[in-house]
């Protein structure tokens, strides 16, 4: 029951945290920035609107937003939010989840290709390329976690005391893992320095350009889906950064939510202090995460012997 409540809480809070990034960026730019509730206003506004469909699109186009939102919510059900046991968990679920997110991406790409717009085609090509490198990183981290915990489940890695156990077992190399996960989060969620969520320039976009043709409730689904995805990745980082569990659910929740805030602020700061990489340099940046995860694994496995 609590687990179900936590999933609803996560869906409810995801848009708020995304607005924290906007606030931090505005602060660095010397502006007041939009209100912290801006994303709720936007979602409500979009849901009230109607959707417009191009005559050249098919059912795939309408399916895209729904599948990606559903994939994101399903993933959330396997996630031990604030260290609480998730609704579902089974051995090997992490691989299922990674490819569930992949399925969501596949449908977003298919919907983008369905419009036959050259912009969206370019965006789709980029969106298909960069996550491949992220996948390598995630599997490297998986290998490390599997060796250390003997489990292949998200619930086992991130609930209760396990993250603290990782730190005990691996020590400093786990810092590499945190950094690698941070890079994967920036890439998977189309943040600066990989993509620029604020730009209006179609030719430089990755994620934004693929959803140009979506409108109204469809676009609201996509937005909510991406907020949840960001929430998913930052939850993993939060649990690693702050592995304490005091045993009082309320206190743990507060600590968790505060640390989440810190992770989002870190995203905002990253976006404010650096420019975006040139498109052909992005793979190098993403590969850095793989190198970090690789070294963490090699070093830790050596220690564990």
């Amino acid at each position, binding site marked *: 029951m609590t687990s179900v409540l936590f999933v609803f809480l996560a869906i409810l809070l995801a848009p708020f945290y995304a607005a924290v990034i906007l606030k931090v960026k505005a602060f660095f730019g010397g502006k007041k920035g939009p209100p912290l509730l801006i994303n709720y206003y936007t979602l409500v506004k979009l849901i009230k609107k109607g959707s417009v469909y191009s005559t050249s699109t098919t059912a795939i186009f309408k399916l895209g937003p729904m599948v990606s939102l559903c994939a994101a919510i399903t993933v959330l059900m396997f996630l031990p939010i604030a260290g609480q046991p998730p609704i579902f968990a089974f051995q090997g679920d992490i691989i299922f989840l990674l490819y569930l997110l992949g399925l969501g991406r596949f449908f977003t790409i298919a919907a983008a290709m369905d419009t036959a717009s050259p912009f969206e085609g370019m965006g789709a090509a980029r969106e298909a390329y960069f996550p491949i490198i992220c996948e390598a990183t995630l599997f490297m981290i998986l290998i490390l976690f599997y060796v250390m915990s003997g489990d292949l489940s998200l619930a086992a890695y991130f609930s209760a005391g396990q993250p603290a156990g990782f730190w005990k077992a691996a020590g400093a190399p786990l810092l590499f893992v945190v950094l690698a996960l941070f890079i994967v989060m920036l890439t998977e969620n189309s943040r600066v320095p990989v993509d620029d969520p604020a730009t209006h320039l*179609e*030719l430089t976009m990755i994620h934004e350009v693929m959803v140009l043709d979506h409108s109204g409730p469809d676009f609201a689904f996509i937005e909510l889906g991406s907020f949840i995805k960001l929430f998913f990745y930052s939850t993993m980082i939060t649990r690693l950064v702050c592995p304490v569990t005091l045993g009082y659910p309320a206190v743990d929740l507060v600590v968790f939510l505060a640390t989440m805030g810190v992770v989002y602020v870190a995203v905002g700061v990253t976006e404010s202090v650096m420019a975006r990489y040139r498109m052909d340099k992005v793979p190098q940046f993403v590969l850095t995460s793989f190198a970090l995860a690789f070294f963490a694994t090699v070093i830790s496995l050596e220690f564990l012997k």
Partner: protein
Amino acid sequence: MQTDFLEIGNGKAVDRHRIPHLAFEDFRTQAMALVDSGGKVVQYFAYEEGDGIKLLAVLRTDRLLTAGCDAPEAYPAMSLTCEPFHLFERELAEQFAIRPEGHPWLKMVRYHPNYHGRKDVFGNDYKADIPGNYGYYAVEGEEIHEVAVGPVHAGVIEPGHFRFNCIGERVLHLEIQLGYQHRGIEQLLLNVSHRRLPIIAEGIAGDTAVGHGLCYAQAIEALTDKAPDDGARIIRTIGLELERLQNHVGDLGALSGDVAFLPPANYCGRMRGDFLNMSLWLCGNRFGKGLVRPGGVRFPMTDVDRETLAGRLQELKPQVCHTIELLFATPSVRARFEGCGAVSNDDAHKLGLVGPAGRACGIAYDVRREFPTEHYAQLNIPKNAKPTGDVYARARMRADEILQSMDIVESLLENPVLTQCVETAPGEPAPSAMVVTLNEAWRGEVSHCVLTDDKGQIVRYKVKDPSFHNWNGLAMSLRDTGISDFPLNNKSYNLSYCGFDL
């Protein structure tokens, strides 16, 4: 070099009878020889006189040279060996149906029927109002894809069509088709009352209101023999430099925004507003419209104005310097700017790039230094040039010019300025005269050329915005560059659509 071309002064009227009227073959050979030996085309256009059509060219070496001839119906294109004529010949073909035989890229410029109902050189049907209706260059191959952008863009960008031929993310060729903003300004300027001329001139390109306004005013002053007083020259110089500051500061911010580095983008946006408000203080219009009129300026600059402007500039200067430092000291920004969209010095010469875009490619030409007008002869304009021709050079060029312009404005605000404001319309232009004016506006060389007939009526008003030269520079920058770097390159030029389309 010894030619029959007549040397003229910037903003000095000449009797049209003194302009050498050559045989076409001599005109062609001598013009090409001048350009081949390092000269550039300032103006090359046709006009109607009596029953015939005549050509007039204004070229520049270290001097301004002019000559004319009777226009043939067709002639072997000069662009074949002498590239700087390329766009001018296309314009001639479009406006007066004079066919340059063997022109390497004979394509319409602005998509309008010629002025005399002659048979169209391009075989277009102008009843169909689709300017993009033209066969673009296409690269063929299995992995080639075309991306068409525009003419309608997001936001408040003017219309223009961009056609990219790409292999993957790499651009092989970019073709730019403009003309969507064609308002027929050159013809309009002949058919309205004199009172409306300055207003139309300031509207040729809204972001270069002072630059075009100044070219117009200087031309009319030369034709009516009414020179502005020294005070007016200083105020006009301040107006032109403020325009440069507004746009360069705005451009640096936009460049920063395009690489998703937000702090300087926000600061520059705000500071651009501050500079615009200085123009507002000077003449009641943020873009400097209504400041310059033939004979001087319409608004004085009192000591209170001077102190206010100087005070504001003093406050802004450290902020501007700090923002420029922040932008160029950030490694990730430099990584994006450096080596992106480079144009070689040789290509820049052939394309005839002007202004900051040209100076970024090592062409130091600056009208303020070489053909000074207004107060510029008394100022020491530094020789700016960067060798690399990339986005970094174009951005750095702007930053340097911002710092220089602030110094210029600061020094001009030091001493009291006295001027008699212009209240009356200018008198009648001199008959049978020709005048060409050049000014270094923020984008580069703006030039107007005015011809009058024997009754003092304006028979031809030719306008050239620096964008006319520089659009092809942007196309050249994109060769072999990632398509995702197009917006960045585009901002680094920031060219005018309406200034080109007229």
